[in-house]
């Protein structure tokens, strides 16, 4: 099957999967005790039966569950994610406003983790008996075992409190009102700690995987051949071996999308980073159902496409994989 055919099939599967996710989310919210109207009435400090009935009608809660589900799904299909009850603004614009911050955070963290993690892993495989390998082991254990929000707080304590060289939180300094390049630099300055924190977790994983696959590749016949030809060691390691050793790293990186989002929620909370994670957390606390549903669906979409992209990337990097999955 051609690559296009695979993409088409996987896309169709993805749409089915996402529809199921939407139905599940909606049903869960329906199943849970309490609803929007109760929240609103609670905030109003009570209301008459008549007002409650009117509100229920306005939010469509007087209809049967299946009717409500049908209305929700047919709305979502047209790209209408509804109105946030708290902000009284379309969910889609609320989400769109927050995407840049989260994308910046997650992509920088991913880049740091991939580059540093792979380098550490390769070096550890290259010198498996040295202090470097021990160091890489230590770093990966730390990254695995420390809760991400705690490492974030510890970094804050260190680099914002004890040695105050980095800001404690936020996206940029509102007071300065910087523009253009100054603003970009300000954002970068604010990005250092959150991105490093988020990267730590994944750096641990990537360095371990890179090391393991590099060890395997370095022991293979074609590497021995390359060495026997008299190629310089650097060429052997970085040109011949690294390409094959990278495969598992790429796969794992792509499949970590869901974990990255989870990490982003915690890291954004620690560093008051105004991204999707914070928005999600607030919407959950406020029982802002439409917003909550919207973010859940969007996350599922991101994870699905992350997986799809990984799959395609994998085929691209490794032409040996037959296209039949």
């Amino acid at each position, binding site marked *: 099957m051609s690559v296009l055919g695979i993409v088409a099939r996987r896309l169709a599967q993805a749409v089915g999967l996402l529809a199921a996710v939407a139905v599940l989310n909606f049903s869960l919210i329906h199943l849970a005790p309490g609803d929007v109207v109760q929240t609103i009435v609670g905030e109003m400090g009570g209301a008459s039966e008549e007002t409650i009935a009117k509100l229920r009608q306005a939010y469509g809660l007087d209809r049967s569950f299946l009717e409500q589900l049908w209305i929700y799904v047919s709305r979502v299909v047209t790209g209408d994610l509804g109105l946030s009850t708290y902000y009284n603004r379309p969910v889609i614009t609320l989400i769109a406003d927050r995407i840049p911050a989260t994308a910046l955070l997650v992509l920088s963290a991913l880049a740091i983790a991939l580059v540093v993690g792979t380098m550490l892993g390769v070096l550890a495989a290259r010198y498996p008996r040295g202090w470097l390998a021990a160091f890489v*082991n230590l770093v990966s*254990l730390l990254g695995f075992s420390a809760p991400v929000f705690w490492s974030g*707080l*510890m970094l804050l*304590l260190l680099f914002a409190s004890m040695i105050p060289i980095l800001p404690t939180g936020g996206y940029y300094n509102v007071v300065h009102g910087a523009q253009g390049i100054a603003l970009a630099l300000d954002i970068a300055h604010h990005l250092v700690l959150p991105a490093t924190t988020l990267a730590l977790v994944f750096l641990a994983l990537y360095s*371990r995987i890179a090391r393991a696959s590099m060890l395997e590749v370095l022991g293979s016949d074609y590497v021995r051949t390359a060495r026997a030809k008299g190629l310089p060691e650097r060429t052997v390691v970085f040109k011949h071996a690294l390409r094959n050793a990278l495969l598992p790293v790429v796969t794992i990186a792509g499949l970590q999308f*869901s974990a990255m989002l989870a990490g982003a929620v915690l890291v954004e909370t620690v560093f008051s980073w105004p991204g999707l994670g914070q928005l999600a957390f607030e919407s959950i606390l406020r*029982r802002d159902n439409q917003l909550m549903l919207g973010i859940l669906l969007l996350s599922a979409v991101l*994870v699905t496409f992350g997986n799809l992209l990984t799959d395609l990337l994998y085929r691209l990097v490794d032409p040996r994989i037959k296209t039949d999955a």
Partner: protein
Amino acid sequence: MRESVSSLGTRAHRSDPVALGRSPWREAWAVFRRNRAALVGIALLSLVAAMLLGGPWLYPVDPFEIVGAPMTPPGPDALLGTDYLGRDVLAGVVHGGRPTVLVGVSAAMITALIGVSIGAVSGYYGRVTDRALGRVVEFFQVLPTLLFAMVLITLFSPTLLTVIVAIGVVAWPQIARLTRAEFLRLRQLDFVRSARAAGASDARIILSTILPNALPPIIVAATLATGSAILFEAGLSFLGLTDPNVMSWGLMIGSSRNHLREAWWSVTFPGFCIFLTVLAISLVGDGLNDAFNPKLRQR
């Protein structure tokens, strides 16, 4: 979520004549006990267990009780200081571990139970069953784990049980995939064929013929899943999505984080406890992985 590929300490047992000619379990143990990192893990784990079991009895201070001035630094009055309300941090550290570990272990057990059942059925029966269950696994893999668990906990009551179920429900796909792969591999081996020829029922073949042989990687995955579940619980508690009447390490960090500058101790110590616990579990998990994995052993 995690891959265990470390070979910490595999050096010691590369050519191990003692380990030959024994049952695989004893052989694995022979390898395991030569693994320094794994032994450190066991020691740490015993330490944590001792603190969780004996601590509250030895140090019966209520972690919610106000015992002194707010934000007293560590010292003679309060060994690990007090938090922003004047609650004893040591009491929190000693008492807050039980819920964290209880939730982590129970959630990991649910994870393993669901994962092994679905993976076993999927891998054993194959064909349509496998494809249908594959869709279910895929569905749960697409769900954003933390967000979904957060929604579950807020929608239903924030009790420890809800937290356990929420983590267990979102975390199982990895073990399911692993179990399925093991069953696919094992079901076509001769000893399974002969069991089938002898007329054993499907349930019997799954449970007593294949499962014992598929256990080693499942045990490793379940161990590491326990560490992940503890981190997951800590994250939820940190966000305040847990039972507010039960002191836990994550809750301590979450409630004190705005006072990080003035009272670093109230955030640092509980976090360090989470770290040590998960580290111990990871070390043991890695050790088990090395011990069970003959391929790594030869390296």
